[in-house]
């Protein structure tokens, strides 16, 4: 049974499809939510396979795995397309949501009252019939008398068939990236190519300079300025831009995404300069600088995937970065040591025993590949509704 800790968190209001009493509205609400974070889409990004995620979510994911989380088709940042139409739909839904929520609850109450009057026994049926939402077919329709029909859960046949390995939901296969994506780019002039390292669009003629600079230099019409003294000038230029951005003067520069840096090639000072360029703190060690810069690039670029009116200013983004850093730090702290010790006593005892054992054994094998045959496919389906199981 969940205790107060979680209950307290549960009582704070986090909007969720389950807020709605009716299945059809739940589905509507769920369909406008990112399947990674479960929130209403924030800066929705469409991949070549057609699946859609929040920009920040998919950017976090793509660092680890270069495939679509839903269908596992390979993808890359170059394929990201913003989806302003969906974004507009989401903000319209956000505005309408509370009204619809209120109306649907009123409607539900009315139905329940009517039921009570007609058949007092039926009203004891729970609101939701206890089945998983996605799998149940019974819809609580608002204009009819509600009769609870049990969902098709043949639990007896359920586990016998293996889970299908891939989702069959790639409806938009015809939307493979065609030859036109460059046309959507906001940059003009020259033939644009995507940098193979950082995926930023670069004028073809500038690609070599760009690569030589460790993906720091973007294309400029006055190309060829990549002389030895250019480095310092560049830093200055960046610094200036950063300041302007903060004041909100140089609105154009904010439409350029920050290119990814290949940190391994950079010296400590250069990594620091990257942070300086965006007026970010240089606290901590190199590892922290890199993590900070990576996160900043993610937040900053994700912000640009929103339509202009929804974008946050640099100050808000900085606050976001700080929150992220704080929450990472907080994770390692234990707020109540006594309960922590109590909760983990078994674990500690076990670890101590383990440590003693390994000491006596005097052998160690740090990472071994554990190999054995695996003849059945244990890949969960990403879309539960497609499972033929229950």
């Amino acid at each position, binding site marked *: 049974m969940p205790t107060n800790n979680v209950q307290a968190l549960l009582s704070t209001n986090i909007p969720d499809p389950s807020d709605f009493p009716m299945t059809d509205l739940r589905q509507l609400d769920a369909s406008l939510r990112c399947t990674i974070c479960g929130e209403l889409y924030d800066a929705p990004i469409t991949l070549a396979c057609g699946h859609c995620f929040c920009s920040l979510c998919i950017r976090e994911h793509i660092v680890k795995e270069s495939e679509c989380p839903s269908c596992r088709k390979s993808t890359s940042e170059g394929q990201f397309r913003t989806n302003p139409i969906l974004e507009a739909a989401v903000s319209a839904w956000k505005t309408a949501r509370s009204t619809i929520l209120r109306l649907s609850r009123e409607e539900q109450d009315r139905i329940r009252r009517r039921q009570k009057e007609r058949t007092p026994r039926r009203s004891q049926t729970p609101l939701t019939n206890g089945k998983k939402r996605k799998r149940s077919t019974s819809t609580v329709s608002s204009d009819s008398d509600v009769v609870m029909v049990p969902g098709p859960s043949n639990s007896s046949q359920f586990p016998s068939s293996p889970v299908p390995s891939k989702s069959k939901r790639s409806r938009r296969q015809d939307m493979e990236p065609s030859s036109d994506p460059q046309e959507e780019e906001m940059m003009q002039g020259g033939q644009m190519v995507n940098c193979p390292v950082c995926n930023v669009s670069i004028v073809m003629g500038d690609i070599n300079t760009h690569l030589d600079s460790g993906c720091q230099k973007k294309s400029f019409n006055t190309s060829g300025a990549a002389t030895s003294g250019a480095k310092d000038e560049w830093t200055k230029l960046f610094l200036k831009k950063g300041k302007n951005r903060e004041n909100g003067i140089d609105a154009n520069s904010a439409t350029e995404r920050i290119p990814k840096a290949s940190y391994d090639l950079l010296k400590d000072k250069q990594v620091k300069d990257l942070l300086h360029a965006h007026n970010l703190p240089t606290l901590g060690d190199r590892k922290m600088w890199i993590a900070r810069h990576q996160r900043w690039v993610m937040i900053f670029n994700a912000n640009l995937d929103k339509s202009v009116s929804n974008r946050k200013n640099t100050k808000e983004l900085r606050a976001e970065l700080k929150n992220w850093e704080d929450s990472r730090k907080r994770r390692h702290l234990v707020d109540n040591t006594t309960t922590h010790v109590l909760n983990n006593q078994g674990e500690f005892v076990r670890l101590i025993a383990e440590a003693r054992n390994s000491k006596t054994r005097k052998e160690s094998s740090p990472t071994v590949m554990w190999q054995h045959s695996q003849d059945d496919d244990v*890949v969960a389906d990403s879309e539960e509704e497609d499972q033929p199981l229950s």
Partner: protein
Amino acid sequence: MTSISSRRLRKELTEIQTEGCPTGITLLSADNFETWYFSIEILGESLYQGEVFKLMFRFDSSYPISAPAVQFVVNQESTAPVHPHVYSNGHICASILGTEWSPVLSVSAVCVTLQSMLASCKSKERPVDNDRYVRYAPDNPKKTRFHYDGK
């Protein structure tokens, strides 16, 4: 401020509490957003008829981008199922808990997969390298690099 991982876990918990777990799965405890326990049993015809196992989920702050650490609880009250992919210390060799994890998966999706993994078992036996693995296994199964040679 609530982090993405606890917001997402809260949503999953709300769903479990309002809609219920999949058949055969019961939430035993979810006192925080770090460790959850479930009981799992295989309904219908299977080698594990009548057996109930306890599953432990451990989440870190990067959930759902990274997979939860999932294992069977082995102590006085409960054991790990005897299965070619389950070690006697409760660690599970399942690709979706490692390389095949996807952030769109959820706690109940993992439960259902493990359920069907057990249900489709044809012979009750431990993995061939069980003893060797269990002797050196790290506490957290996520630290093991399992080798999946399934299809």
